[in-house]
Each structure stands twice: as structure tokens, then as C-alpha cells.
């Protein structure tokens, strides 16, 4: 039984199509990244999973329960860090967790959770005075309470500094090792790349790719990108470079040529480019998921070779 089974999900808000026949399956036990630019429909899909919003058509089943007809059964088994939430300003962190523990009918100690998400010091302060990062930790703590079978995290690293983001990744891994399926949405590629088993990329309400990070990489590019500082980046140069053997894509980025490579040696390519236009400096990078993301959602900006 899949942890999440989304089939042919469509949602219209008036004339706006937020989701356009989305199909997606998340297996139990995996860490699944849900990637897309702002407005792609990520939050709408999650809102439907949580029954905050009702779909125009299509179905979502979470842990075998239909989210509309059996929403309570779904929410009994999941932990959620929603997007664009707000804490109860006049209640303390501890009071938030006491309330959540009561509703989730768990005996888990709120203090232990506060310790785990790193805000034990602030437990008895009103949450309205917390920083964005502390609020994020608090709500993550609420999500972790009661040992859920599935964690749904909508943009979990929002408001966190790099250390905080790493702590969240560590918590995600720990939970996953205990058997929890993790589904999280993000537009922060590094987060997704670092922890996910599989990634789905959605754009304009529909799925454009779903695979492992490595799978996505090999399906599109060989994985290396040359950044060449050249004397001239005019369109004729770009076009000529695009015709060099082994070059898959060329784009101008920050005044430099950004060249993705096929199965040719990067020295061969660089020498060939040097004959077209003088190469003043260069660097090499491995294709990040960010590049893939741009590739999938913004293709028109690339000059295809």
C-alpha cells in the first residue's frame, strides 16, 4: 500500500488551474521530495491531502484512507508542518505541545520533543515572541509528536539558518530510520538533494518528472557543467559553441557561458570552444538538482544544442 496515492487530481480556483490532472505515488518508507517553483501547485496538493481544500476532481489516498471521506483516520497517523501557518501567539511552546499531545492521545513528554527540536530553553515563553526559526521548530515538534507513520513537511527549512536546516535534515533522516515515510516540499534544491530517495518536480499543476536524484541527472545531462569566461558572449558565439561536439546546452549566465556536457572530455570541448572565442578563465561544476529544476521548469531560457 503506498503512503500517498494521488490520482488525476485537479483543482480550479475560479479561472485559475492550480492542479491539472496530477498523478503521484509515494511508497512507504521513502523520503520523497516534492519540488516546484512558487505557484506550481505544491501547497494546493498538500492542502488537499490534509482536507483543507476540496479537489475539483480526482482522489488522494493517504496510508490507504481517502482524505475526504476518512480525513480523521488520515490525520491520526500523520504529522504535519504546514505552509504559511501561524502559531498561537498567547500560548507558550509547552502549551502548544500539551494541546497537541492531548488531541493526538499520546503520552509522549512535550519536554522531550522540545529538547529534540532545540527550543527547550524557550518552552515557557509565549510563542508569539519566537523567531521564525523557533516557530518552525515548534511546529515541527508538534508534527513529530505521537510517532506518526508519515511526515508531511511543507517548506520545512523556511526561516532557518544553514545549521538549523541541517538539524532538520538530521531529524528527517532519524525519523525515516525509524520507519517513517517523509514527504516534503521545497524550492530549496540542496535540502531535497541531500536527503531524498526520490524527487518529483511539478510545474503548472502537473508532474514533469519523478525519479531518484541520480536518475533525474542521468536522464537529462551527463552531470558536468563548464562555466567559461570568454571575450564575447554574442548570440553568434553561443550558437557556434552549441554546435561543438559533446555540448548539450549553452546559456549565458552572469556574463559567462554555461555549457553542459555530453559524453566528451571537457578538455576537448574547452579546446574546441577556445578556437571559436578566447577562453579567459573557467570552472567546472557537477549538475545540481537546482540545474535540473531549472531545466525542467524553465526550459525556454536555455538555448538547446
Amino acid at each position: 500500500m503506498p503512503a500517498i496515492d494521488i490520482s488525476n487530481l485537479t483543482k480550479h480556483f475560479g479561472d485559475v488551474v492550480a492542479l491539472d490532472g496530477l498523478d503521484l505515488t509515494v511508497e512507504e518508507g521513502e523520503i520523497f521530495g516534492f519540488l516546484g517553483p512558487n505557484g506550481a501547485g505544491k501547497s494546493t496538493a498538500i492542502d488537499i491531502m490534509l482536507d483543507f481544500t476540496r479537489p475539483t476532481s480526482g482522489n488522494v489516498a493517504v496510508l490507504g484512507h481517502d482524505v475526504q471521506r476518512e480525513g480523521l483516520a488520515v490525520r491520526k497517523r500523520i504529522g504535519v508542518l504546514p505552509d504559511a501557518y501561524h502559531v498561537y501567539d498567547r500560548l507558550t511552546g509547552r502549551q502548544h505541545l500539551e494541546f497537541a499531545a492531548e488531541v493526538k492521545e499520546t503520552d509522549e513528554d512535550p519536554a522531550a520533543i522540545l529538547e529534540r527540536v532545540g527550543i527547550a530553553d524557550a518552552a515557557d515563553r509565549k510563542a508569539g515572541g519566537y523567531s521564525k526559526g523557533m516557530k518552525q521548530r515548534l511546529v515541527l515538534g508538534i508534527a513529530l509528536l505521537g510517532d506518526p507513520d508519515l511526515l508531511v513537511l511543507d517548506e520545512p527549512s523556511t526561516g532557518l539558518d544553514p545549521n538549523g536546516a541541517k538539524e532538520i535534515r538530521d531529524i528527517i533522516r532519524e525519523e525515516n530510520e525509524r520507519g517513517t515515510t517523509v514527504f516534503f516540499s521545497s524550492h530549496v534544491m540542496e535540502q531535497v538533494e541531500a536527503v531524498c530517495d526520490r524527487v518529483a518536480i511539478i510545474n503548472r499543476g502537473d508532474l514533469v518528472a519523478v525519479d531518484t536524484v541520480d536518475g533525474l541527472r542521468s536522464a537529462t545531462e551527463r552531470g558536468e557543467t563548464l562555466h567559461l569566461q570568454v571575450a564575447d558572449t554574442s548570440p553568434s558565439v553561443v550558437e557556434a559553441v552549441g554546435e561543438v561536439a559533446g555540448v548539450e546546452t549553452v546559456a549565458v549566465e552572469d556574463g559567462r557561458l554555461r555549457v553542459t556536457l555530453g559524453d566528451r572530455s571537457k578538455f576537448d570541448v574547452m579546446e574546441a570552444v577556445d578556437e571559436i572565442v578566447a577562453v579567459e578563465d573557467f570552472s567546472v561544476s557537477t549538475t545540481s538538482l537546482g540545474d535540473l529544476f531549472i531545466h525542467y521548469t524553465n526550459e525556454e531560457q536555455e538555448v538547446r544544442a
Partner: protein
Amino acid sequence: MKALSVAKKDFRDAAQSRALWALVGVFVVLLLITTYGYSEFPELFGPLDEATFEGLIFFTSSITSLFIPVAAIIVCFKSLAGERELGSIKILLSLPLTRTDALGGKLLGRAGVLSAAVLVGLVIALGFGAALVGSVAVVPLLLFVALSVGFAAVYVNIMVSLSALSATTSRAITYALGFFVAFELAWDVVPLAVVYVANGFSLPEQIPEWTFLVSQFSPSTAYFTSVIALLPDAATDVGVTVGGGGPGEVDPTAADPFYVTPEAGFVFLAFWLVVPVVLGYRRFVSVDL
């Protein structure tokens, strides 16, 4: 039973509203001043030369009938609309509870907060009044306090339901104030205006009796009428009548026994207790948050 957990949390949250306790402070001060005025100069407020505890109750009820609606607006207008606007409802409804639990919890929690505020205000004011008048009528006191708490619950139901219909707090305050203006400030005028227009833009010599019944439909008038129904003997002594306003405004024309049955107040209060919640519930459980 999850609604009780929500109610407890909501009570903790809303009971910390500074605006509410500032209003309770104003209410208490106002009651203390007017109670003093009534006990010193009872002849200004009614036919009796001597201040009585029952008279004080009727006198107080004319102030609570204004205080409770205003306090209910302050305590309740944001209850659900504010959570939707800010997004705290996403934390609430991600937990294993239903929207029915959330709405029920809000109703109970806010009713608890407003009841506490009303109790605090009445205990201080009537305690002070009892000391000035020099007597306490225990049964009328208990009936009046119970009815006032009930009226607070009625107004909480109205205001939480209007909040449940609203996606934003600005919409919610518009509904709340619109309700207050329509049913509390303008309501007495509406039936008269209808009669006036229907009669060719002049008032008939005999105002039709149904207008008295219609005017009692307003929640605060229904509350005042219910106080009379609970304490009929005291009402006669003090000189208040249904449809006749507060003490001292005795209206001899309001005499028809069918239309001025004080028990109609209970029927109207029951209407306001139930109908808004049904409408708010139906909308809230189906809306996209």
C-alpha cells in the same frame, strides 16, 4: 470529545485578551457608578421611592444587555476568521480532529471566556449594590446571573457563527457590526418604519400589536423580556413591562396579553442559540480554507 481539548486551549488563549478585560473594567466601573446612582436616587429610575435589590437587577440588566453583545463581538469576531486569515487553523486542523470539533471547541471556549467576564462583572457590581441597598434576594439573583450567562452563550454562538462564515477578519468584523446595528440599534425602528410606510407615510392611531412581538426578536430585547418572565412579581413592583423598555418607561399601551407574553423571550433566545450555529456550521465544514 476533542472539542473539549480545543475549548480548553481556546479558553487559555482568548482569556488573555487585554481588550476583553479592559471592557470588563469599563463595565464594572459603569455598573458601580449607576448602582450608586440608583441606590441613592431610586425615584429617578422607577415608581418606587426606595431602592430594592430586584429593582437593581432590572437596572443592571439594561446595562448587561448592551455590554454582553459588545463584549461578544470583541471576544468572538476573530475566533475562526482570524485563524483562517493568519493560518493557525492549519496547525489546528492538521491534528486528528474534525472541523466540527474545531467549531464546537471555539463555541465552548469563547462562551467560557465571556461567561467568566460576565460573572466577574456581575459579582462585583451586584455585591456592591447589595451592600448599598442593604438586602439580597438570593433566588432572583441566581436566576438573573444564570440567564445572563445564557445570553452570553447566545451571543457567542451568533458571533462565532458569523466568524465561521468569514475568510478574513475584516469580513468578520463587518458581519459582526452589521448584525449589531441591524438587530440591536435599528431593530426597534424597523417594524415602525414598515407600519409607517404601509400606512401611507403616516403612523396609524393604533400601532399594530404584531410590532411588539417583532421588536422582541432582537437578542438583547429577548434577554430583557426573559428577565421579566423569570421575575414577574419583581417586574410588576419595579414597573417594567415587556416592550416598554427599562424601569421608569412604563408604557400603558403595551398591554395585550398574547403579544406581550414575556415567555416569547425564551423562544427568541432559543432561536438565536441554534439557527446561526446551523448556518455557520454548514458553511464552515464545506469551505476551502
